[in-house]
């Protein structure tokens, strides 16, 4: 046996699994056919956040006039922007490479495919291992009629390279997390951005009130949102890309012209080239390789983690599952038993949530109480010049048990730490309300939302 564990894919799921397995004393290999770090570090979480930060600094410079700070002519060096972003990616992927070395993980370069349930081929070599962890991730879903050429019509990977000049008119097809993050970037960079979404609401999965507040702020910032709208086809002409849009409700069609079209209509699991059939691993109709709470597939010594294992396709879920798989293989009592998996849209304001939405809680039969505290009443938000948003808490009425927290606002993702821990600890709104939160912080709004559940928030009237 060449290795105790062979991990396929070095995205967040795979590299967390590999490192934890090595920490636990196992002999570990990790195969990767593209770049260490996977989608997340190379063309996902990290480069988008870099661009979002840059875009937000442009907006911040504009708002600085409110307190008397003004600037002369502003210049954006697009090549430098792309280079800076790439530098961060390189630093992080280089870091993962260094961690592989330091943890004595064998990095197998190339595409891995199963020969049988105990053997994997990478390049022209075959390797045996006691356990395998499939962490092959996902790729952008395609939309018929809109062929991605990564120039005018791009997917999330193409959209990461900011063109020079910035497109004047930008269409984002898909009003999910990824679509809005890019729309926010391009809007701040100066594009006129329209987002279309097939469903009646953007950011499916988030709390309806939170989505409403979020969409209001995006609209105020200049992003046009059209729900229940689809894009049928796109054609490049001299004056731009002609896109046929259709109202889902009325069937009415019209053509609009854009300079760049982003297709962001979801992601699908990736198992091409992996030849899992040779190992007898079950793949669902939709291409997922499902796993149990220990991340085991139908074949007991083959594990599946991350995007390929199922929804939600989020890096922190992949990481958790990677750690669980590694620990289980090392004989530890690990399980993916999380009460809730947080979600974040890293725009400004951010939209961040963890746990049940009000509607989900009701659908599950909970008797629900909610408490909401608007950031317009937060002193800290005022000093940060960012008062759009609120904290909303969903609580089981009889027991006061926290069920979900939904935040629109600056640093919302940082406030999720408390909310997530509270859910995992089985905390009540009272536990949060009785905990001293530093003043003046955005976290006080979490406290006030908990107080609002009991109609005892201090800085608003409780009705």
């Amino acid at each position: 046996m060449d290795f105790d564990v062979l991990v396929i894919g070095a995205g967040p799921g795979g590299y967390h699994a590999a490192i934890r397995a090595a920490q636990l004393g196992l002999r570990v290999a990790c195969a990767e056919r593209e770049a260490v770090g996977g989608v997340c570090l190379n063309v996902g979480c990290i480069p988008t956040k870099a661009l979002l930060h840059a875009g937000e600094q442009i907006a911040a410079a504009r708002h600085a006039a409110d307190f008397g700070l003004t600037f002369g002519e502003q210049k954006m060096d697009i090549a430098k922007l792309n280079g800076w972003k790439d530098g961060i990616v390189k630093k992080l992927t280089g870091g993962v490479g260094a961690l592989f070395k330091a943890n004595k993980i064998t990095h197998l370069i190339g595409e891995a495919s199963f020969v049988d349930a105990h053997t994997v081929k990478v390049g022209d070599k075959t390797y045996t291992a006691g356990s395998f962890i499939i962490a092959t991730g996902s790729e952008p879903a395609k939309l018929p009629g809109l062929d991605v050429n990564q120039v005018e019509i791009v997917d999330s990977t193409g959209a990461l390279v900011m063109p020079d000049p910035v497109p004047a008119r930008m269409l984002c097809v898909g009003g999910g997390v990824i679509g809005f993050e890019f729309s926010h970037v391009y809007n701040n960079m100066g594009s006129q951005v329209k987002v279309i979404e097939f469903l009646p609401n953007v950011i499916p999965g988030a709390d309806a009130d939170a989505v409403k507040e979020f969409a209001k702020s995006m609209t105020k910032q200049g992003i046009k949102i059209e729900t229940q709208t689809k894009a049928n086809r796109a054609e490049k002409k001299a004056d731009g890309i002609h896109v046929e849009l259709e109202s889902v409700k009325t069937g009415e069609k019209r053509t609009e012209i854009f300079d760049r079209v982003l297709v962001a209509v979801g992601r699908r699991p990736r198992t091409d080239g992996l030849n899992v059939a040779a190992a007898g691993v079950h793949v669902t109709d939709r291409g997922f390789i499902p796993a149990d709470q220990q991340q085991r597939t139908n074949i007991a010594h083959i594990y599946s983690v991350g995007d390929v294992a199922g929804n939600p396709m989020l890096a922190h879920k992949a990481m958790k599952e990677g750690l669980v798989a590694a620990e289980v293989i090392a004989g530890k009592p690990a399980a993916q038993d999380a009460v809730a998996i947080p979600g974040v849209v890293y725009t400004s304001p951010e939209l961040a949530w963890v746990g049940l939405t009000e509607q989900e809680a009701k659908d599950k039969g909970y008797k629900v109480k909610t408490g909401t505290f608007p950031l317009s009443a937060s002193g800290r938000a005022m000093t940060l010049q960012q008062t759009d948003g609120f904290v909303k808490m969903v609580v089981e009425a009889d027991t006061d048990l926290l069920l979900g927290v939904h935040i629109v606002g600056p640093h919302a993702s940082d406030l999720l730490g408390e909310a997530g821990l509270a859910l995992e600890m089985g905390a009540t709104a009272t536990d949060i309300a009785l905990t001293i939160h530093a003043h003046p912080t955005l976290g006080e709004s979490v406290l006030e939302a908990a107080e609002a559940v009991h109609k005892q928030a201090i800085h608003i009237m409780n009705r």
Partner: protein
Amino acid sequence: APTQPTVQTREDGRILAVPAARQLARELGVDLAQVQGSGPNGRVRVHDVTAHVEGARAVPPQSAQPVASAPAAPQPQVPQPQAPA
């Protein structure tokens, strides 16, 4: 009759209890030091306090049990949080 549970006391004298349990104990006149916590390190949660009160109520009041004879203890409407499925 059940005996008073032996409650581990920490060396630092701290009684580990979540804020809501501390408040409920005050409300019910329960001495937290007498409550057996079910969490890690003997951490007392709300349901530990209510279980303690119910246990005490099942036993006829004795002078040794300050809980049952606490003057301020109202008829408790005992919340019992359950982790969501």
